[in-house]
């Protein structure tokens, strides 16, 4: 069984979920995809927006979350780290 997710794992899962949906996702979908409760999700979303990793956009009367270039760069780094962990058994 996988252990408890760290803060970085949760952020990684959120950003990956946005990417998996083509870089644009509805907040409710993101909540389900990243296995978060509403309260947690709001906290993380605000944090990610503040750090310029994602942004909220309005399109056809709905609110969407999109990933920024900085967010994409972080995803790339996190994938690299995961591979590094696998390779060197950390």
């Amino acid at each position: 069984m996988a252990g408890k997710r760290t803060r970085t794992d949760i952020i990684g899962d959120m950003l990956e979920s946005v990417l998996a949906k083509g870089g644009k996702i509805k907040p409710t979908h993101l909540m389900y995809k990243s296995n978060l409760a509403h309260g947690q999700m709001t906290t993380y979303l605000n944090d990610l927006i503040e750090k310029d990793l994602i942004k909220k956009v309005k399109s056809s009367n709905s609110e969407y979350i999109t990933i920024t270039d900085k967010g994409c760069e972080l995803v790339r780094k996190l994938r690299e780290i995961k591979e590094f962990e696998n390779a060197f058994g950390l």
Partner: protein
Amino acid sequence: MVKLIYSPQWFYGKDVIIDIVSICVLLLIAFFSINYYRIKKNRNYLYFALSFIILASSFLIKILMNINIYYKIIETKQLGIITVVYQSVKSSGGLFYTSFALYWFLTTLGFYILYSTYQKQSMQSFFLGTYLLFISTYFAYPDYRAFYLTSLVILILITINHSRKYIKKRHFTTKLAALSFGIMAMSQIFFILVDAANRFYVIGEVIQLIGYISLLITFIMVLKHGRKEDEDRHNW
């Protein structure tokens, strides 16, 4: 009297190049590991980087010693008096012996920290292990076989650890890392045999170089994997 020169004459200087390559590989991986620590805040990355930095420092000491020894030998050889060579090295023997002991201790310590990163243990156990390494370096010195044997044992344990992880998760890069450490372990066997013939030193150095190059390839694969998925993302 400690034997200071294992290398055959034609190999002088070439082992220095091999060690420089090893240092570059170690520092490169350590640098990235520190960067990853900044993102993940997982101390294992820091210990991993520390072990690689210590190993790189030990190689640096070895290089400085070898350059010094080879320089003195070449310098006196030009005079054509072999006994002067012996005295030249012996005259600063104290410094050489201390450097050798430091090189041996740092190498085994680097491998031990690397091994400890994989095996969760208390701080007390870690310090006990370090103390025992220090004592073994101090008392086993000047028998170089004890040093290479210790490195061999730790490297075998690291290889076994990686192999187990590979069997469990089947990641290609884990297999490559296990192979790299396995090759490094193999090089230690040839270093142990160096007293029988100088060519074993050359074989050991070459195998060690192959080990570090495969470690570099492992690391390049890690980076490539991250970039590959990054390219996939750009296709959406």
